[in-house]
């Protein structure tokens, strides 16, 4: 099997869009953008500063590519997390133009490149350096809701059977990649770091509503705490921020209702 390539020049008279022509001829319209990054290095200065970087890029690249270009070509001290670069590992959540997003899933053309693009660390967690924050409190809240299957009795010899309907009950919340975009978009979490936060509740939801799991009562009791689900003020920032499209607020509300009705 050979890789399909465009070998023939477009025939005269064929209607072609400018974009197609550009793609076929390999030409890319480059634009000059300003990336305004909130830099913080406690070893050099106690305060954070905004630093502007100019670069000429294809508007169809991702914000992560732009940051990589800055690090590789302009300032090697720029510090941030990234790993898979394809929206799966959840490392590069940051506040781009005032909203939490994954830098690897955000295209330059979608963030008003005609104006400076602001990039800040996610809010509510201690900034260690530049865009790197201390994720320990976030993962501690995650661990606290016991995000693993809890069962009693003997293990079945084959599988734990579950109907399609039962899977759908929690399918949405299995998509979480623990990027912290939701938790750090929450005004309640900004003001009170003790709040479990949307991500921990989403991951509790994933097991509470799993018909194979038997630890729902324990998890509900954990989330019945004053820093549990009741702190949620339904601002929907988490739902808007989730790069996986999880209906986070809906999941939190389902946990609240499960606490009231004890039906799950």
């Amino acid at each position, binding site marked *: 099997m050979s890789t399909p390539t465009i070998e023939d020049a477009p025939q005269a008279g064929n209607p072609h869009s400018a974009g197609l022509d550009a793609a076929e001829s390999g030409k890319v319209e480059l634009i000059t953008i300003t990336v305004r990054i909130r830099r913080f290095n406690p070893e050099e200065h106690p305060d954070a500063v905004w630093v502007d970087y100019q670069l000429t890029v294809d508007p169809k690249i991702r914000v992560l590519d732009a940051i990589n270009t800055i690090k590789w070509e302009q300032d090697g001290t720029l510090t941030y997390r990234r790993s898979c670069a394809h929206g799966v590992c959840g490392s590069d959540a940051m506040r781009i133009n*005032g909203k939490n997003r994954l830098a690897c899933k955000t295209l330059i053309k979608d963030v008003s490149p005609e104006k400076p693009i602001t990039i800040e660390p996610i809010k509510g967690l201690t900034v260690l350096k530049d865009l790197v924050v201390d994720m320990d409190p976030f993962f501690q809240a995650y661990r606290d809701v016991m995000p693993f299957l809890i069962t009693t009795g003997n293990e079945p010899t084959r599988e734990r059977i579950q109907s399609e309907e039962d899977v759908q009950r929690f399918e949405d919340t299995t998509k979480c990649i623990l990027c912290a975009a939701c938790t750090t978009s929450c005004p309640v979490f900004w003001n009170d770091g003790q709040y479990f936060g949307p991500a921990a509740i989403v991951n509790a939801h994933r097991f509470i509503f799993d018909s194979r799991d038997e630890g729902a009562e324990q998890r509900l009791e954990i989330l019945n705490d004053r820093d549990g689900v009741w702190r949620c*003020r*339904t601002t*929907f*920032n988490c739902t808007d921020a989730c790069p996986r499209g999880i*209906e986070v607020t*809906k999941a939190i509300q389902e946990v609240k*209702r499960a606490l009231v009705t004890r039906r799950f």
Partner: protein
Amino acid sequence: MPAGTLYRGREGMWSWVAHRVTGVLIFFFLFAHVLDTALVRVSPEAYNSTIATYKTWPVNLMEYGLTAAILFHALNGLRVIAVDFWAKGPKYQRQMLWTVVTVWVVLMAGAFYPILQETLRNWFG
């Protein structure tokens, strides 16, 4: 330190901010209201003179503002209850907010003359 940017939340965040602000306003009104009513226990004259200051145009405008705050808080409160207890509430929260805002605007337009008629008469004859 140059400040970070304001988080660009959408309707949900701003409705929560408005709910908080109107809630605090209503609390301060109730606080003042309890105090002025309690004045009648001090002396009826003190009570009367305090209430007389309320019959001025700045207080009249504040009454309209109080109506706005209470109406928004009440209507958005119904929306929050729906988000909490109706399974499809989170899905339709945005539509519900715009419904709340529409009803609020209509009611505020309707309340404009009845509440402000004294001030309007004084100003425009």
